[in-house]
C-alpha cells in the first residue's frame, strides 16, 4: 500500500549535477594541481637567489601595486562610463555605448607597444615635442606610471560592461526611491545604486585584477617587473620549469584567496530581489545642456585614447605593409573565428549550467567548489598552456590538438562568462525556479522556459566577451594549436617576437575587425529587441 520512492528519485537529478560539476572543476583544477606536484623537486640555488637578492619581495610588491592601481583606474573609468551611458542622454550616446567595448579587441600587449612606440624618445610625437617645445615627453622613470594607465585602458571595458548591465537591469526604482527620500543624484548614486551593483562590479574587478596579475606581454614591453615576469624568468632564463611551476602555485593560491573573499561577501548578502522586473528600465534621465556636453567630452576623450588613437596607429602601420595581405589572411581570419566561436559557445554553455547549479545549491562548500571552476584565469597563459598540454600528454592524447586548444581556452576564460551569468542570475530569485517546479516542469524544461529567456541577453554578452578574449589570446593558442593553424593572435606574436611591431599591425587590425562582427551582431539584436 505504501509506495516508497527509490533513492534514485532523489539522486538522479542530483547525481548528474554532481558528476557534471566535479568533471568541470577537476578539468579546470588539473593544470593547477600539476603545478603543485612540482614541489617535489626544489631548485635551492634559484630560490636562494630569488629570496636573497630581495627579488621576490620586490616583485610581490610590484605586482600588488600594479593590480591595485589598474583596478582603481578601471573602476573609476568603467563605473563612471557605465553610469553615464545607462542613465543619461548625451550626444552620440548610443554609439558610445558600444564603442567602449571595442578596446577589448586589442590585446593588452598591443596597447603596450603602441603607447611605448608613441612616447619613446624617437617617436614622431616625442620628437615633435622636444624639437619645438624642448620638452621631453619621456616615459616616466617609474614604469608603474606608464604601465598602470595603459593596462587600465585595456581592461576598463570589463568594468564598464558589467556595471552598465547592472545599472540597466532595473535600477530605476531604487534610484527613484532614493530621490524621494531627499538624496540628491550624486548621493543617491553612491549610497543606493553602487552598493546594489556591487556584485557585478566586484566580478569585473576580480577579472581585471587577475588579468593584471597574469599579464606578461604588456609588462615586458614596459619593463615593469612583476611576480609573473619572475615566473617566466625562472622558466626561460634560469632554466627551471619546476621553479616556475612553484611560483605559479603561489599565484594560484593568491587567486583562490581573492575568489574566496569575494565569495564570502557575496554569500552573506542575498539579494532576494523581487521576482518582478519592471519593463521600464531603459528610460534615461534628462540633464542640463552643460552636463550633456561634459559627458560627451569625457566619453570622447576616453574613446580617443583607448581606441581611436591605437586604431589609427595600427592602421597607419598596416597601411605600410598592405603588400602582405594575401589570400592567407582569410584563412587566419576564419581560423580565429572558428576557434573563438567554438570556445565561446562551450564556455557560455558550461557557465550557464554551472551558474544555475551553483545558485540553487544549499551547500556552501559545493557553491565554493563551483566558483573555483573560474580559477583558470589565475594562471599566466604559458603556464596554463603547459599544464593543459601535460594533461593531454599524460593520457597520450596530444594528437587531439584542437581539443586541447579548446580545453585550454575554456579553462582560461570560463571565468569571464561565469561571472557575468552569475551576476545576471542573482537578479532574479529562486522562487521563479521553485514556481516552475511546483507547476510540474522538470529541470530540462525549466532551462528552456525560464532561465534561457531571462538570461538570453547576458548569455549573448558573455559570448561576446569570451569570443573577443579568445580571439586575442596568445600563449595557449600558440602552444596547442593544430599544425597549419595560424590564427591572428599567433600572427601578431610572430611579428612582435622579433620586435617587428609595425608588421604586427596588419593582423592586429584584422583582429579588431573580427571582434567587430559579434559586437555588430549584438547591437543589431539589441536594437531589434527594444523596438
Amino acid at each position: 500500500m505504501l509506495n516508497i520512492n527509490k533513492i534514485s528519485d532523489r539522486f538522479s537529478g542530483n547525481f548528474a549535477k554532481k558528476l557534471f560539476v566535479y568533471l568541470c572543476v577537476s578539468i579546470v583544477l588539473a593544470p593547477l594541481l600539476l603545478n603543485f606536484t612540482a614541489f617535489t623537486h626544489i631548485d635551492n640555488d634559484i630560490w636562494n637567489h630569488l629570496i636573497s637578492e630581495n627579488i621576490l619581495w620586490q616583485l610581490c610588491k610590484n605586482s600588488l601595486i600594479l593590480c591595485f592601481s589598474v583596478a582603481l583606474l578601471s573602476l573609476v573609468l568603467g563605473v563612471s562610463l557605465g553610469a553615464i551611458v545607462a542613465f543619461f542622454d548625451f550626444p552620440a550616446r548610443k554609439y558610445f555605448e558600444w564603442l567602449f567595448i571595442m578596446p577589448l579587441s586589442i590585446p593588452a600587449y598591443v596597447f603596450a607597444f603602441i603607447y611605448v612606440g608613441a612616447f619613446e624618445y624617437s617617436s614622431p610625437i616625442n620628437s615633435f615635442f622636444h624639437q619645438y617645445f624642448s620638452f621631453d615627453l619621456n616615459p616616466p622613470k617609474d614604469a608603474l606610471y606608464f604601465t598602470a594607465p595603459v593596462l587600465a585602458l585595456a581592461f576598463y571595458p570589463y568594468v564598464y560592461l558589467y556595471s552598465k548591465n547592472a545599472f540597466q537591469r532595473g535600477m530605476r526604482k531604487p534610484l527613484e526611491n532614493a530621490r524621494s527620500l531627499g538624496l540628491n543624484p550624486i548621493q543617491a548614486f553612491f549610497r543606493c545604486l553602487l552598493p546594489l551593483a556591487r556584485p557585478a562590479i566586484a566580478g569585473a574587478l576580480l577579472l581585471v585584477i587577475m588579468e593584471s596579475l597574469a599579464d606578461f606581454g604588456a609588462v615586458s614591453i614596459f619593463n615593469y617587473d612583476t611576480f609573473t615576469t619572475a615566473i617566466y624568468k625562472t622558466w626561460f632564463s634560469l632554466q627551471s620549469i619546476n621553479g616556475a611551476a612553484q611560483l605559479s602555485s603561489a599565484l594560484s593560491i593568491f587567486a583562490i584567496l581573492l575568489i574566496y573573499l569575494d565569495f564570502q561577501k557575496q554569500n552573506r548578502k542575498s539579494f532576494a530581489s523581487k521576482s518582478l522586473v519592471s519593463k521600464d528600465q531603459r528610460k534615461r534621465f534628462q540633464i542640463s545642456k552643460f552636463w550633456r556636453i561634459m559627458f560627451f567630452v569625457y566619453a570622447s576623450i576616453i574613446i580617443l585614447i583607448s581606441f581611436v588613437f591605437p586604431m589609427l596607429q595600427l592602421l597607419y602601420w598596416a597601411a605600410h605593409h598592405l603588400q602582405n595581405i594575401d589570400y592567407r589572411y582569410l584563412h587566419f581570419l576564419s581560423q580565429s573565428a572558428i576557434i573563438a566561436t567554438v570556445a565561446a559557445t562551450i564556455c557560455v554553455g558550461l557557465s550557464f549550467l554551472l551558474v544555475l547549479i551553483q545558485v540553487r545549491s544549499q551547500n556552501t562548500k559545493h557553491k565554493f567548489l563551483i566558483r573555483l571552476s573560474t580559477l583558470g584565469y589565475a594562471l599566466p597563459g604559458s603556464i596554463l598552456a603547459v599544464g593543459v598540454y601535460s594533461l593531454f600528454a599524460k593520457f597520450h592524447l596530444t594528437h587531439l590538438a584542437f581539443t586541447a586548444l579548446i580545453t585550454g581556452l575554456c579553462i582560461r576564460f570560463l571565468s569571464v562568462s561565469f561571472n557575468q551569468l552569475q551576476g545576471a542570475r542573482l537578479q532574479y530569485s529562486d522562487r521563479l525556479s521553485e514556481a516552475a517546479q511546483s507547476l510540474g516542469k522538470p529541470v530540462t524544461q525549466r532551462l528552456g522556459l525560464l532561465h534561457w529567456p531571462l538570461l538570453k541577453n547576458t548569455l549573448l554578452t558573455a559570448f561576446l566577451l569570451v569570443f573577443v578574449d579568445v580571439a586575442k589570446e596568445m600563449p595557449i593558442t600558440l602552444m596547442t594549436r593544430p599544425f597549419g593553424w595560424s590564427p591572428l593572435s599567433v600572427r601578431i606574436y610572430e611579428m612582435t617576437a622579433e620586435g617587428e611591431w609595425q608588421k604586427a599591425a596588419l593582423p592586429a587590425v584584422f583582429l579588431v575587425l573580427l571582434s567587430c562582427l559579434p559586437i555588430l551582431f549584438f547591437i543589431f539584436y539589441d536594437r531589434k529587441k527594444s523596438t
Partner: protein
Amino acid sequence: MSQNLLKIENMCMHYPQIGKVLDNISLELKQGEVASLLGSSASGKTSLLRAIAGFEKVTSGKIYLSDKLVSSQDVLLNPEKRKVAFIFQDYALFPHLTVKQNIEFSFSKKNQMDIMRFCKPLAIDNILSRYPGEISGGQQQRVAIARALVSKPDLLLLDEPFSNLDVNIKRQLSIELRDFFKSENVSAVMVTHDPNEAFAISDWVGVLKDKELVQWESPYNIYHNPKTPFVAMLSGRGSLISTQIESIDFKNKTASLNTPLGKISGDYLQDIDASRDNFKLLIRPDDLVHDDDSSFLAKVVNKTFFGAYYLYQLELKSGDLVESYIPSHHDHHIGSSIGFRVEVDHLVLF
C-alpha cells in the same frame, strides 16, 4: 483505504546554518479540506510548507501525499512530480511571460484545460495579454492562484498570500477564496500570521510555536479550547486571571472556581492536575456582558472604538485587567465604574 490527502508523521527539519526549524510535526488533511498554519515569524510555518512542496529535505519523520511516501530521511520526491502547487508570498510570476502565458505555464501536450474556468471567477480574464509588471498586487495574487489551479494540483500551498494586499482587498479576497475553494473541492494549506484570515477560510488551523505544532484543530476549537495560553492569545483577545479551584468533579468534568470575578462554575475540557492550587482562567471580551443591574463593578481604564463596539479595558478590585465588548452606543467615561455579568460558557484553565 484512508482518504488522507496529506499526512505528516513526526517530521523534523534542520537547516544547515540555522539548526532545527521544525520538531515532531504530525498532522492530517483530507481531500477537499483547507488548513491554515498560524504562528509568529520564524516559527517554521513557511519551512513546513516548503517541506510539503518538496523544496526542502526532511531530517526525520515522513510526509505522505495521497498515501505515497514523498519525503523522509532517505526519500525526496522532486517537487515537479508531486502535483502540489505553491503560491509564493511575492507570487513569483514569470516576468518575461504574459498573464495568459503564466497561467498556461503548466500545460503540456497531455495536460491542458480551459483557463477561463478559473480566470472568470477570479476576475482576471481582461488582463490576459498584460505582463506581470503592469498589473496591481491584487491582480498578481489572483493570477498566481489561477496559474496554480490550472496545473490541476492535488494540493494547493499558499504562503502568506494576502500579506502584500490592502486590508479591504484582503478581506474580500479571503471570503471569495473560501467560497471558491469549497465549490471546486480544492485542498489547500495556507500560511498566515492573521488569525482572522485563518478562521475565515479554514477547516483546520495549526498553531506553530518554537518549531512545534502546538494545536491542530478546527477554528472553533482553537478559539474556544486553546491548549496553551499562546494559542489562546493568538486566536483572539483575552485575559488570564488567577483563579483557585473550589471544587472539582473529575468524572463529569465540571468545576467550581474562585476568581476575582466571583464564583464561576462550568464544564472544562482540559486535563486538570489537582495537586496544583493556582490556575489561570481565560476570560474573553465576549465573556463579560455589561449589565447595569449587576452589583459586580469594574473600573473603566481604557476604551478603543471599533465602529460597532467599544473594547473596554476594565480593572477589577483585585487589580486584574480584563476586556469586554460594549455596544458603541454606550459611552462610559474612563474612570467610571460599570456593572458586569459573567457569561462564561465553559472553562478554559491553564
